[in-house]
């Protein structure tokens, strides 16, 4: 049984973030993998899980979710072997500090050496980043600028939009993946959902063609009509 835990959807779930759990569960089940999706809400204990999902949220709820994760032993759960996939505010929480409500710096979970300050402007719009040669498409809506420690690998190179700083997006460690693409980014990028599932289950997955593949190609095309230097197949650079 593959257990996927959605952390505090009542605080971090502003943009249809629940979609990521839905996508992972459906794609796993389609390959015969038994999945249980469990929402952890305010006041609940964080159980052991194969994969934890973190969504986006507004300032106050973001700070509360961060406190709950620290108090609830989230870092221990990850060190016990849990994988993490985080978007937007979830990314900021995983770092060492982040700025909200004016410019006050707030202590993060500290799972990754990354820190977020408030940028001069907010970035709202279509978002695309190259992840080891593959295009990831999505949407971003945030005002943060995230810097990474020397030993932290970014998740992708920004093609359209801002991500961490206009150059790179998110970060990744062997078991943690984080991106500024908000909301149900796995719905638009079936390959990324499968890559996560493979990493978590330790097994290769058979192809599972669906309308989501057509959506992915369409969104890549939408990006490349705006940026002619992008490979139209959404494949290798």
């Amino acid at each position, binding site marked *: 049984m593959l257990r996927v835990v959605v952390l505090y959807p009542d605080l971090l779930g502003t943009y*249809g973030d629940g979609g990521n759990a839905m996508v992972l569960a459906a794609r796993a089940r389609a390959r015969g993998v038994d999945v249980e999706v469990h929402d952890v809400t*305010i006041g609940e204990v964080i159980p052991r899980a194969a994969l934890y999902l973190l969504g986006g949220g507004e300032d106050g709820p973001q700070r509360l979710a961060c406190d709950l994760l620290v108090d609830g032993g989230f870092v221990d759960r990850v060190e016990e072997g849990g994988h993490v996939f985080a978007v937007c505010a979830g990314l900021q929480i995983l770092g060492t500090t982040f700025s909200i409500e004016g410019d006050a710096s707030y202590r993060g979970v500290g799972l990754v050496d990354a820190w977020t300050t408030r940028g001069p402007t907010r970035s*709202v719009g*279509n978002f695309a980043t190259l992840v080891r040669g593959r295009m990831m498409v999505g949407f971003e809506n945030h005002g943060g600028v995230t810097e990474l420690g020397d030993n932290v690998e970014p998740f992708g190179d920004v093609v359209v939009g801002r991500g961490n700083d206009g150059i790179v997006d998110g970060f990744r460690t062997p078991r943690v993946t984080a991106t500024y693409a908000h909301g149900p980014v796995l*719905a638009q990028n079936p390959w990324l959902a499968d890559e996560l599932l493979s990493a978590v289950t330790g097994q290769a997955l058979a192809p599972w063609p669906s309308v989501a593949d057509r959506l992915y190609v369409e969104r890549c095309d939408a990006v490349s009509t705006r940026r002619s230097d992008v490979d139209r197949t959404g494949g290798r650079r």
Partner: protein
Amino acid sequence: MAPMTLRLSWRARLAVTSLVVVNTTSRWLGRGSGTVAGGRVGLAIEPKLLSELARARTVVLVTGTNGKTTTSAMLRQGWGSDVGGNVTGANMPAGHVAALCTSRGPRVVLETDEAWLAAVVEATTPAVVVLLNLSRDQLDRANEVRQMAQRWRDCLTPQRFSGVVVANAADPLVVFAAEGSTHVRWVHVPLAWRADASSCPHCTRAITFGDDHWSCECGFSQPTDLVARLSEVLEIAGGSYPLDLALPGEFNEINAALAATALVELGEDVELVLGRIRTLHSVQGRYGRRRYGNRDVRLLLAKNPAGTAALFDSIDVDSEVWVAINAQVADGKDPSWLYDVPFEVLRGRRIACLGERRLDLATRLLYGSVDCDVIDDPDVLRRATTPVTLVANYTAFRDWMARTSPC
């Protein structure tokens, strides 16, 4: 059209004249419904035009994420004849000044965009402000719901507003916005959508929802001093009244309860008001029946998760369901909200996916285990005769109004 020019400053009179010229020209050229362009010109000439035009009139403002247009239509219908307002739904100041130029009566109902409430309250000194609900809508415009609730709250304080607030007591964010105002009339209604109010606007702790009441540990809780309560009937002014609306859905009963409460507050007779509201069958094409080839199509407008979820209970059992989704500026350019809509209640039906973002919709339905077809060319749907319920978001709705014809 006879603009109201009495007792206006010379600058305001010039602004009104220019506004009327621009709007008449733009209608004549067929450029849209001709309300916003002239309004912008008028406001450029006289920035205080809205307050000049609103002076000496009784103004009701209606705001909220969902139901603004319908509730405003109910207020106009229920208030009697010659009630002015922005009937085309242009709900920012440019649309408001255009509406006030074309109506002369002393009674005005203005549908008001959530983000503009403070400015319009200040300019129009409304007698009543109706707060319907507050939930996520087009978040890529960065109007996060808590910030919006705070802005409403700030503009309704006793220092800035002395009129009456008619407020939905079941929505914690609305209660947060209204609670500091001087004259609040709480209306209890059934609340289906809670996803945006699960954490307390005062202290961010979890709000506990019971069957008929909600509260937070910090003491913030549902008001109990109600002036009206909607259940099977509307209890108001010492009596109970069945609503029996021609418009479908529980959400329209909620809209009617808030509209009726506002009109009772303005001294109208509740029986008379409800009798008039019952005669409303369609609002700006919404809920109305249209023709598409051999089909009878009922058009429903869905702009966001709460609004879309509320529509599902008014879909006829024997009709096909088509859903059309666009993601233009007016719709919000990010269709992520589709994952907050409980499409799963449509399992067992086969949905036709339409609109520019039909693949986003079909993917959402795939992951929700709802059967669907992606329709690249809507013409193929013309021939069959099964009636259709079409749920569309803003610009997709507009496209389908153009593609269909009146019955």
